[in-house]
């Protein structure tokens, strides 16, 4: 057992699930509730062991299902607790009823989504279809590229969620298989410094179940009675404001994190070798590593290719995305899930929407890969780059390229 010391960072080797669990230890939540599901299970096993070892001093609720997991956390949060859980795929689906309610209650929770493709076909492997299915529920969604980013981002997510201008729940997504089980060397920030960074939890100053401050939480709101419509609209608009605020707040948090811990992550979208690029590939999650390798290889061949990595997906960072896209003549967007309505990926659809609201007009190539645990290799990205280059010349595919169609 690695002992976590207060003021010095140190290097360890672990997978993404353990990294998330260690981040939770650093964030010192009051209540953690868990229910195991592949590929998240080792994460909650780690948490349980940390509690058993006294490393994590949280109340641990081993609930009978994800629905109760999130419900218990809602109660705890309303009572003033900093809270955390993690889930995946079918677990997220089962959690859906309390899940959709959490943002409206403005409960600043952090929940890791260890992403998994959705049933059916029956499948236990990675894919972002689960997270993408809840992209319009009002949760903040952040996608991580590697194990270190998982660790750092889970900690930062608490600060984002609890920020008074935000007060929204945050999903930190890391890809099942690649990040959940992928082992790498990571630097553990010093616990004392994280304490300073996060500060005291302030989760229920605005809405509480507390005998000292009696109030009705979530009375019936809306309807056609006097003031009902205005009241409901008021709540919804304030939720949207919280979402919008998250972009700047998260940027500030990243800046502070960089100052304190020396690691500087791009908070919204990361531009990689983009400044002089003719074309770009757009990635989300763990595929970014292979994408960067492909970009490097293309550069080595003399092709002016860059990469745009989406980190914050909800709210959608459209300003940052337009700024990045304005530097290139075409972009190839790689989704790890599908939008059933639009015959493309959800990220592709969001990028198109962002472009439409801007003066930038460039061709987009839609690519879908990595479903159900499939690899997206540098070779796959080479195909994306080639298709994007062709699109820049006017040859735009009418429908998405399915990268693993013949694998």
């Amino acid at each position, binding site marked *: 057992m690695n002992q976590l010391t207060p003021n010095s960072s140190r290097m360890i080797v672990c997978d993404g699930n353990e990294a998330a669990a260690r981040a939770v230890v650093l964030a010192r939540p009051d209540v953690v509730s868990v229910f195991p599901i592949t590929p998240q299970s080792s994460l909650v096993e780690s948490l349980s062991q940390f509690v058993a070892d006294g490393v994590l001093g949280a109340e641990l*609720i081993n609930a009978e*299902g994800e629905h*109760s997991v999130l*419900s218990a956390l809602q*109660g705890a949060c309303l009572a003033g607790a900093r809270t955390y859980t993690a889930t995946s795929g079918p677990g997220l689906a089962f959690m859906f009823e309390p899940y959709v309610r959490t943002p409206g209650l403005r409960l600043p929770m952090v929940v890791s989504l260890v992403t998994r493709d959705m049933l059916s076909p029956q499948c236990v492997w990675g894919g972002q279809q689960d997270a993408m299915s809840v992209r319009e529920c009002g949760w903040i969604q952040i996608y991580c590229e590697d194990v270190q980013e998982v660790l750092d981002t889970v900690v930062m997510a608490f600060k984002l969620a609890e920020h008074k201008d935000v007060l929204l729940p945050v999903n930190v997504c890391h890809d099942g298989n690649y990040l959940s089980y992928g082992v790498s060397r990571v630097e553990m920030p010093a616990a004392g410094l994280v304490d300073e960074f996060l500060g005291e939890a302030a989760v229920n100053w605005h809405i509480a179940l507390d005998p000292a401050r009696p109030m009705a939480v979530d009375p019936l709101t809306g309807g056609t009675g006097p003031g009902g419509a205005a*009241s409901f609209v008021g709540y919804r608009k304030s939720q949207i404001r919280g979402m919008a605020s998250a972009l700047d707040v998260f940027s500030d948090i990243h800046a502070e994190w960089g100052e304190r811990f020396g690691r500087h992550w791009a908070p919204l979208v990361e531009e990689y070798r983009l400044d002089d690029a003719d074309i770009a590939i757009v990635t989300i999650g763990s595929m970014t590593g292979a994408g960067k390798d492909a970009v490097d290889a293309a550069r080595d061949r003399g092709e002016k290719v860059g990469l745009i990595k989406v980190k914050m997906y909800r709210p959608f960072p459209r300003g940052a995305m337009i700024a990045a896209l304005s530097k290139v003549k075409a972009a190839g967007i790689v989704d790890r899930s599908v939008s059933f309505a639009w015959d493309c990926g959800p990220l592709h659809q969001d990028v198109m929407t962002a472009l439409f609201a801007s003066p930038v007009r460039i061709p987009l190539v839609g690519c879908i890969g990595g479903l159900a645990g499939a690899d997206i290799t540098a070779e796959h990205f080479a195909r994306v780059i080639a298709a994007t280059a062709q699109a820049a010349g006017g040859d735009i595919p009418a429908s998405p390229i399915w990268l693993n169609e013949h694998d």
Partner: protein
Amino acid sequence: MAAQDTIRFVPERCDGCGDCMKACSKAKGSASRISVVAGVGQGWEMALCRQCGDPKCVANCPAGALDKHGGTGIVGWSAELCVDCHLCTLGCAYGGIAFDPTAGHVQKCDMCDGAPACVLACGKGALQHLSAAARLHETHADKEDMFVPGLSACQGCNSELLIRHTMRRIGRESIVAAPPGCIPGMGTVGYNGQTGSKVPIFHPLLTNTAAMLGGIKRQYERKGQDVTVVALAGDGGAVDVGFQSLSGAAERGERVLFICVDNEGYMNTGMQASGSTTFGSWTSTTPVGEIGRGKSTDGKYLPQLMMGHGCAYVATASTAFLDDYHAKLEKALAASRAGFAYLHVHAPCPTGWRFPAAMTTEVCRRQVESNFVTLWEFTPADGLRFTRGVERPRPVADYVRMIGKYKHLAPADLERIQASVDRRVETLQGFRRRPAAE
């Protein structure tokens, strides 16, 4: 009917000393109106006015000299109007009103203005001054009502009565969950930014009440603060979609009090059937028609399932027996400090079941008298104990006949209901802890 007193005799504690009679005689300056006599075979017995609800002495009086006081419930006697015919004594089967030769007229107990001398004189605890309503009033009247006036429950609904009683007792150091249903429907959680309660109250989902309460309680325990967290749930949120979270929280021994107010269906939303709806019931989703004959299966009996979870305390209750309910509420609150406490309170619904609003308490009583509803409590250590005997019940038809939702039932249906009532009693009897000797 207002608060009404009575004097209870506990024969096991009586040693026949006669102090009560001396005290009565002294207090009234005449023959004692309470009479303790040697029992048949052993022990002691007592004759005293019971201040009957429907007193036959009053009915027998030709002179209007006796009357039942609507407020105190005391049967009063007027020396001015009495004509000494003694016909009243023919009406009394308790020896509660008798001719006193020294006084020259009949005498009866007048409860000594609320402080009966006999009770005060009894050092053995064999006499107790009892009054369900009066004692409840005494115990709870000074306590704060935790809900706003004007909750909009249907006329005749006993849920409002129940939740006001419950929260008066529990008080402000509490948090209330009112999952969707009649209880928030009557306005307890409020509307558009206004609350219906003085304590923190919230709408959980229909599905997750017990889990949310568990989470709340864990956080207060972590902070070292003693807060009662209580669910005022309907049967849908407990028996049906709420069952998983309830079961999980019970298994984990979350230290909460879960009260299920069972009106046997989704009454708030238009009387649809729930898992608790009983066989034969008309509901809007088990209608009666050419083919349909109401619900075709028995209801799920949740209290029994909660026993199976080994909860710290499980009990059933009826608002026709509020004393019993309050006793159980006390135990449930105490038990909820150590583990999961579950109370199942039956709530006949005049609107959805179709009976006159004025009859709710009678319907509650009849449910119990017919064993359709049984009153019991359970702890893992002591097993099940009936708090009201189940022997010699009325036929369940006496209950069913009162309820409109059953009016289409054929004799064979009634037989089936009777059989399942009998079976349930038998099953419950099996949960009793038997003495080691057996």
